């Protein structure tokens, strides 16, 4: 039931409206009739209504317009205005009958519906945008992925889609739309095509792990080896039939190559270790467990790897005599960082074997030793050979010294006779012979000593003795045989040292004879004995040819001789090596100060108390 009823003239001027209008709008009749009623309509809608009447001849049926009506409380309400024309017999509009129904509720529903629709539309648009973005992302991912991605269609693998990385693998050759055999002819016989066909036929994916391939990267006919990890997955149409293959792969050539390089070098190392019969060990110092090669355990007499091996297993294998020494070496290694040890071990069958152990200590960030890595070698055979050599040299030395004994003895007998006969010429000649015999004897002794030294078999007889006295005795010996050089002794030291006077005498004798030998143009050699609170120091100064700085550390090496090409001096090159070693065995050190052409000053120092601790141990 409409609220409002009205009539209007053909041009839209209100002629009548019912009472409801006046109540709703609060307008008077004057304010309504004619065109005045338009003022009650919302300004935005009034234009529409006016237009509707502007050309009423166009409207031959009833018209319906929604427009807001201003009501008495100042608000607007939606009304649906309907107007039906009344026509004369000629069809001209002569009057309008109209109604107005409140449609606020309707409008609200419509508005809600519209809002819902807009909202849904917005959502659809958003979803579309998201889908597009997602598609773009996937596309980017696909195109930028470091992986090799391609889609092949059909059993003959027509190349349908691929990413740039995939293309790079093939040197950017044109493959789009080509069947695989045409696109990548070099793969024939390498299995790749067969995989595609298999996946197509079976519908099952195929995986390749470090699968090798020969690829013409440069499209120049040369084939490069690659290794690929890949998966071939079938893709299906809506009916579930396989349409093609998706390929996802990664080029792992670099990884495979570097692993191969490592494996090869490891293999080489293992071959070298096996060839050298070297056993390898890696000891965890905290838990006393280790990782070893089989050879390691074989060296200890086991045919298979022992379940556990650490210091607790190692030391009991060492023969009792060598064990304290081995333990000392081990303790020292944790301080110095290097383990060097030769000792004897006993196998379960009681056979004794020599081993050489070398190791390197690894420390944690606090500097604590945590790990030791090293090698072990069976040196039994070498030791046996050394012993043979040792006994051979010992025999040689004995055989050489036996005639020397007679030579020296008879020479001395003749010297006594010559002295009695007071024949100075004869005496002088015999003195020369004796000198040479002494020299020959010293050479033989040195040779034997140097061999023993290498095997740490040089024997020492430690006693308390006076260094000053020892120096004087040695100098006296030289005064007897050296008539050209004048030997001067400076200083003295009352305090005794603990050492082997014969060995120390050997050292003093060696450096004095060097001083004489290497100063043919000078006539003075100065021997000085002095002390500091801990050491006695002996120095021998000559004024001879001197030693170049570059040779100064090397002259203490075995068999090292300074060869200048111009001046040559006879000798074996073992004297200083032997001397330095003897001094070291006394806990002392030896050094040289010199410059070429300026003479040389050889010195050694021995601690007064150097080996006293050991002496006290021995006495216990």
């Amino acid at each position, binding site marked *: 039931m409409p609220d409002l009823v009205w009539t209007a003239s053909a041009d839209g001027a209100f002629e009548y409206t019912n009472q409801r209008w006046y109540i709703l709008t609060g307008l008077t009749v004057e304010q309504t009739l004619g065109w005045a009623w338009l003022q009650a309509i919302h300004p935005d809608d009034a234009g529409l209504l006016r237009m509707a009447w502007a050309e009423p001849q166009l409207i031959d049926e009833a018209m319906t317009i929604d427009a807001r009506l201003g009501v008495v409380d100042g608000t607007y309400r939606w009304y649906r205005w309907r107007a039906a024309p009344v026509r004369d017999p000629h069809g001209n509009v002569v009057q309008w009958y109209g109604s107005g129904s409140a449609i606020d509720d309707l409008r609200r529903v419509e508005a809600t519906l519209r809002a819902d629709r807009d909202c849904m539309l917005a959502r659809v648009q958003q979803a579309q945008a998201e889908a597009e973005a997602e598609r773009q992302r996937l596309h980017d991912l696909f195109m930028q992925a470091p992986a090799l991605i391609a889609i092949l269609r059909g059993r003959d693998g027509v190349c349908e889609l691929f990413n740039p990385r995939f293309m790079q693998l093939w040197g950017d050759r044109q493959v789009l739309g080509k069947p695989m055999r045409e696109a990548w002819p070099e793969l024939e016989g390498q299995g790749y095509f067969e995989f595609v066909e298999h996946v197509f036929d079976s519908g099952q994916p195929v995986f390749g792990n470090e699968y090798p391939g020969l690829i013409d990267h440069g499209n120049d006919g040369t084939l490069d080896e690659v290794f690929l990890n890949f998966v071939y997955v079938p893709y299906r149409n809506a009916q579930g039939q396989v349409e093609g293959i998706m390929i996802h792969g990664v080029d792992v050539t670099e990884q495979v190559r570097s692993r191969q390089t490592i494996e090869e070098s490891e293999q080489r190392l293992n071959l070298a270790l096996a060839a050298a019969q070297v056993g390898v060990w890696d000891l965890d110092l905290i838990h006393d467990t280790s990782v070893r090669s089989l050879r390691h355990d074989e060296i200890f007499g086991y045919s298979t790897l022992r379940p556990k091996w650490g210091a607790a297993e190692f030391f009991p294998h060492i023969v009792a005599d060598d064990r304290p020494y081995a333990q000392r070496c081990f303790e020292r290694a944790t301080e110095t960082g290097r383990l060097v040890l030769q000792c004897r071990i006993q196998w379960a069958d009681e056979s004794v074997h020599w081993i050489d152990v070398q190791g390197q200590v690894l420390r944690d960030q606090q500097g604590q030793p945590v790990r030791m890595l090293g090698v072990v070698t069976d040196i039994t055979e070498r030791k046996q050979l050394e012993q043979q050599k040792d006994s051979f040299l*010992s025999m040689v*030395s*004995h055989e*050489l*010294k*036996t*005639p*020397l*004994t*007679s*030579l*020296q*003895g*008879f020479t*001395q*007998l003749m010297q*006594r006779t010559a002295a009695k006969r007071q024949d100075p010429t004869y005496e002088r000649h015999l003195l020369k012979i004796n000198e040479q*015999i002494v020299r020959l*004897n010293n050479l033989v*002794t040195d040779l034997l000593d140097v061999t023993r030294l290498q095997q740490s078999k040089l*024997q020492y007889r430690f006693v308390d003795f006076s260094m000053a006295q020892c120096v004087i005795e040695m100098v006296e010996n030289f005064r007897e045989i050296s008539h050209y050089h004048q030997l001067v002794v400076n200083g003295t030291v009352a305090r005794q040292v603990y050492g082997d006077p014969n060995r120390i005498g050997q050292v003093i004798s060696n450096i004095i004879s060097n001083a004489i030998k290497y100063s043919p143009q000078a006539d003075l050699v100065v021997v000085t004995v002095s002390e500091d609170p801990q050491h006695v120091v002996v120095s021998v100064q000559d004024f001879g040819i001197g030693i170049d700085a570059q040779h100064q550390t090397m002259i203490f090496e075995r068999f090292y001789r300074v060869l200048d090409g111009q001046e040559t001096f006879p000798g074996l090159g073992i004297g200083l090596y032997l001397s330095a070693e003897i001094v070291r065995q006394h806990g002392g050190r030896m050094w040289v100060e010199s410059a070429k052409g300026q003479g040389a000053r050889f010195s050694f120092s021995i601690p007064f108390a150097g080996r006293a601790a050991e002496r006290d141990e021995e006495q216990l």
Partner: protein
Amino acid sequence: MKKILVIDDDVTVVELLQMMFEEEAFLIQTLTSGARVQQQVVDFQPDLILLDVLLSGVDGRVVARTLKQQVATSRIPIIMLSATRTTEQTSRAAGADAFIAKPFDLEQLLGLVNAYLR
């Protein structure tokens, strides 16, 4: 006259020692092997024995130990000689009173002998 028994398998050394000690007015007897030492010592009754370590046939250290273990000969001083200096300790352990390395200085050996015979 003091008596010295010289035992060395090197005849030249034996000759040398004989000449030297005779010059010094000692009575010398010599042996060039360790084979008949016991008998010789009993027969000769030496005041001192000069004994080479590495004798052919029998080791000088065995000879020394045997002599030192028998009451009749245990008091005779034995000076052992060797061209191998490393035998000094074992020689002393076998009972040698002194050791002298070959080649030796005659005066030194003489001094040592005199010290034991004084």
